[in-house]
């Protein structure tokens, strides 16, 4: 399993199970369909994520993984079905969308830091303008999270002066500054050099240990096995199989899953 050994994280065994709520639903997706023109990207997707759960979404490219999580904060809109986040249903109501987005953090493959602002300003922009927190307080909070992702000394630099791994950790800190209840990760390590993948994954593991509800689209199977409570496997816009990491890797139920695993792990 090269994928696992290459980026194995310096910790033993899976992340300790934090309390997963049995009743508190974080995200509920019901019979969602979505098309790009004629092409159906999501077909009949059903997924329930409980608070405190850590979900890894895997699957070949073009299987609809990114589209699904981008629907959760309505960067993409679904045409049929219901998506309820934190008890708020996502419709075309802009006010509600902004309300949901405030409480969901998202980390992108391309980092998407704001190049015209310093690292600190990147982290304080939304807290100041959206949450209306006083600047000084926002800066203190930003420094706290920058310290947590281990780059407080870069606070006054600009994104272009940082390495990819550092930029992605800033992106995580920037999301955390909004005190999100759920974090979405859209292939956070796919654009990184191999040696930088580890530092970002470690940051994500720390976050998992703190009990954050996380939904990650990733190809890092080592991370999935260590951190996820559940792995969701998608293909052709459908959820083919979902299971615990142990079952998913050692006893896959579907032929398509077995094929995917044999390709990704060898």
């Amino acid at each position, binding site marked *: 399993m090269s994928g696992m050994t290459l980026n194995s994280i310096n910790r033993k065994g899976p992340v300790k199970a934090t309390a997963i709520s049995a009743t508190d639903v974080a995200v509920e997706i019901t019979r969602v369909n979505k098309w790009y023109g004629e092409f159906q990207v999501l077909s009949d997707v059903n997924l329930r994520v409980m608070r405190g759960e850590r979900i890894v979404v895997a699957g070949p490219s073009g299987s609809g993984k990114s589209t699904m999580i981008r629907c959760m*904060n309505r*960067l993409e809109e679904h045409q049929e079905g219901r998506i309820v986040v934190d008890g708020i249903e996502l419709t075309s109501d*802009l006010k509600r969308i*902004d*309300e949901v*987005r*405030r409480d*969901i*953090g*998202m980390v*992108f493959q*391309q980092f*998407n*830091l*704001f*190049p*015209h602002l310093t690292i600190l300003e990147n982290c304080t*922009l*939304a807290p100041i*303008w*959206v949450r209306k927190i006083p600047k000084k307080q926002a800066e203190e909070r930003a420094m706290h999270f920058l310290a947590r992702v281990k780059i407080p000394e870069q606070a006054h630099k*600009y994104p*272009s*002066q940082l390495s990819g791994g550092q930029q992605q950790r800033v*992106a995580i800190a*920037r*999301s955390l500054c*909004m005190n999100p209840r759920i974090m*979405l990760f859209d292939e956070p390590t796919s654009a990184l050099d191999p040696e930088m993948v580890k530092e970002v994954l470690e940051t994500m593991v720390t976050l998992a240990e703190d009990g954050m509800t996380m939904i990650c689209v990733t190809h890092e199977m080592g991370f999935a096995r260590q951190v996820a409570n559940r792995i969701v496997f998608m293909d052709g816009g459908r959820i083919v199989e979902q299971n615990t990491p142990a079952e998913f890797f050692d006893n896959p139920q579907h032929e398509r899953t077995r094929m995917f695993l044999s390709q990704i792990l060898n």
Partner: protein
Amino acid sequence: MISRTRLHGLVFVATATAIVMWLSFNFSANLAARGMTIDFGFLSAPTSFPIGESLIAYSSGDTYLRALTAGLLNTIHLALSSIVLATVFGIAVGLAARIGHPLLTSAAKTYVEFTRNVPLLLILVVCATAVRGLPAPRQAWILFDGVILSSRGLYLPMPVFSGGWALGIAAVILASTTSVVWKWSLRGRSRLGSFPFASRISLTFCVAGFASLVVWICLTTSMDWPRLTAFNFRGGWSVTPEYLAMMFGLGFYTSGFIAEIVRGSLAAIPKGQSEAAASLGLSTLLSLWLVQAPQAIRLTLPPLANQYLNLIKNTTLAVLIGFPDLVSVGNTALNQTGRAIETVSIYLLIYLSLSLITSMIIRRLERRAQVVKL
């Protein structure tokens, strides 16, 4: 043995010198054949024509230099107001095309296509015809209290400052003191984390200074309202119908191009930027203001400079509808004195300087708008 590049350089310089020498020889030979000389002496001679409108006092019989200066000031006045108009409309339409309701977007696109695809001359003819249709002073349209539009032009109330020089000097002193105090206070803040006591006191004095300046201005300023006399309005600030036609024509035409520049620059910002802003909960407007616009402005400036330069040069079309700009006044001077080469070289020098000044200003802005500061 000389190197190849050096040889190429020498050949180029030799050819260029030969061409310039041939042109200047030709020029002086032709002048001599016609018995002409180059002489700017006519500038101090008295004119025998009036100018429709002027920002400085001018009447028939003043020197040609004064007439041309009046024309130049008209050109600058027209160019500046058209630039402001074009920029305001351009930005509004460009933003509408980018973030508006689908209906607004298609309206903006129609506006852009219309302004871009109708020749400027045609737009100016339409505007000139339109201002001829304005009502006589007695039937004038009163748009707001004191804002009057009629066949005599647009009249606005004008503030009259009677504070005089003392007011101006006080304002300059106050502004420069404040700027020094502010810079000093910022240094203090970055050292101590908050404004030191001394700078808080000085800043309070500055604010008090500004407040008293405003009070002073309010006490010494009166408004001059335009009033109807027998055949026209008097008082206030006014512009002629020809000026209005030129300003709206140029502003309208150029705004379409500026709208497209604004739309294009915003479209060039990677989609990830607005997605990141949205995922942080920033509304569309906040995302535009805080994230997209600061990055787009750097892309906007170079093509914007092109549009401003075009607009300045297009003011010369004022000849067509009888607005006395530099070329219009200059052509009259040329007809009366026969000093063609002198007049045209004055045009050349002035438009070149205006364009260079504009580019210089935009360059400075560009440097300030650099995204990545290192």
